[in-house]
């Protein structure tokens, strides 16, 4: 009896794994069962998570704490938040569904405003900064590097001298490529088009190739589970 119980759940995992892989051949009822189990389980998990991770620790616990600490304003603010959140339920009826626009409007507005500064810092300012100078403060167009190359003209020195300028030119090309309001006949836009695409495709290719092995290893990981972990459980429980 105990053998069955130790073997049961890992076998379920193996069967579900195989069920998913049948999808690669074509859609079939076995995959469909696994897919619907996963949908159900994940939504069920999410319901409980909302309770354990949002409603309890973010709403009920702080609100009661604020009340007992005498911080009534904060407690009321949290209750208002809960009430606004409840407005989502107005969507159950056609007539009242417009009430759900309030939580939506607040969420969309807040995050739109909240994200502007971090987006600017990480996507714009930081990236431009890194195109001007290396992290150690050296210039991307480092004349010293060129000097080093002219003193000692090796291949390695040449590469390290031109890498910085190539990055700068690449970034500029890509930036120009995405201008919207210049005509394609514009001489700068036209001249930069093809080189920009070369930079983009080399870059995307690099990123693609870099991820390739990581994805392959995911499959190897699943196979390991079946052929090493599960087989071991199987032989030990059946053998012993």
């Amino acid at each position, binding site marked *: 009896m105990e053998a069955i119980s130790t073997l049961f759940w890992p076998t379920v995992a193996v069967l579900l794994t195989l069920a998913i892989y049948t999808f690669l051949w074509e859609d079939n009822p076995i995959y469909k069962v696994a897919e619907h189990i996963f949908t159900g389980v994940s939504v069920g998990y999410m319901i409980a998570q909302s309770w354990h991770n949002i409603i309890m620790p973010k709403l009920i616990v702080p609100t009661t704490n604020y009340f007992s600490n005498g911080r009534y304003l904060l407690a009321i603010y949290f209750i208002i938040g809960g009430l606004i959140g409840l407005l989502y339920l107005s969507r159950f009826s056609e007539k009242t569904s417009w009430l759900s626009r309030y939580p939506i409007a607040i*969420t969309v507005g807040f995050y739109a405003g909240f*994200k502007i500064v971090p987006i600017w810092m990480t996507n714009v300012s930081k990236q431009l900064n890194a195109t001007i100078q290396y992290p150690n403060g050296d210039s991307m167009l480092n*004349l010293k590097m060129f000097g080093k190359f002219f003193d000692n003209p090796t291949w390695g020195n040449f590469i390290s001298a031109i890498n910085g300028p190539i990055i700068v030119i690449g970034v500029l090309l890509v930036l120009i490529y995405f201008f919207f309001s210049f005509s394609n006949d514009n001489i700068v836009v036209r001249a930069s088009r093809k080189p920009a695409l070369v930079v983009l495709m080399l870059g995307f290719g690099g990123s693609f190739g870099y991820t390739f092995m990581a994805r392959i290893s995911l499959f190897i990981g699943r196979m390991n589970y079946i052929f090493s972990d599960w087989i071991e459980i199987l032989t030990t429980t059946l053998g012993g």
Partner: protein
Amino acid sequence: MKRFVYILVIISLLFSAGFAEEAENNNELDFTPKGKLEIKDKGNDDGTGVNVFFRPQNKPEEVKYYLLRVYYKSVSEDNLAAQYRIENKDRRYKFNVSLQKRRKHPYPNSRKGVARVYVSNEKGEAVKAFLTESTNTSASWFNINKLSAFMGVLLFLLFVYIFIKQARRGVEFFIRKIPGLEELDNAVGRATELGKPIYYIPGIGTTSRIATLASLNILAPVTRKVAKFATPLKVPNRDPVVMSIAQDVVKEGYMAEGRPDLFNSNDVFFLTRQQFAFAGAVSGLFKREKPGAVFLLGKFYAESLIFAETANDVGAIQIAGTDSVSQIPFFIAACDYTLIGEELFAASGYLSGDPLIVGTMKAQDYLKAILIVLLFIGIILNIFDIDIITKYILQR
């Protein structure tokens, strides 16, 4: 001269204070604990950060361990913000301390930090306090490190104002062709011809992702195009809030084309919040319903390729676009048309042709042009070791 005298007075006072304290405990230690302790307001924060510097001046043989305690408000067990055990390695130590860390109270009601150094034993216990320094901190009203973002926004608003004013006067702006969006009509048309549904996936992000909002903005003109052909449009969602918005957007799109009868709230539905459960369920739908066109616009993570490949498998035209730079390569490799990067954010203006939105696109271009100029200036100045741009304008 005056200042010199003051310093002398302060130093002598400090020394005498040190000796006085030492005299009390003289019987416990056979050496004089010495060191230099500084506590400074970190600045540019909400007034809870202090930097504490400590330089031991005893030899490691004399004092092996010190203990640094930082309190807020005053020295008391309840007010302890942080403590560090310092092994004497004869160098200067620096600590970044948040005066808020261990406080139960969420609001800072004290703007004072106190640092105290103890001689410590092997067990890490405080044996004897010998230095105490304190500082008052202040909350700042502007984070100077984020000045460039503020300036950028102001500049952008200025351009938006200028171009929207022009747009209102009737000036028409040129917008270059975006190939992925040009194909939108064809994709919708082909799905209609084949009598197959159209799937629109607004990504797997929540509304806190700007890419999701951009995608919902594109959904509006897409629905209007679809409404003209009366082709079924399905929008599976990973987030209930995004689903609510998508329902409203689709409904509004059908209404605008005078086809409210086509709207069915069941066509804009929620599946699950789990990333790969969603991917699995959507690819199952693709295989079963064989859509003629699939739009993958919004925030995508690793599952991007699952959508793109199954859609390709059933022969759908795929138009994709995301702001996740690591997923763009997969979309380019697998999809028929890809909106690269910022094209996703420009799409709503491009499709709707709303002069106000087109005006903001123009403003965005001008801001970008200014940044390119700044980039040039920065690079040239940096060659001559002038770091004014990198330090103050385009901060790291």
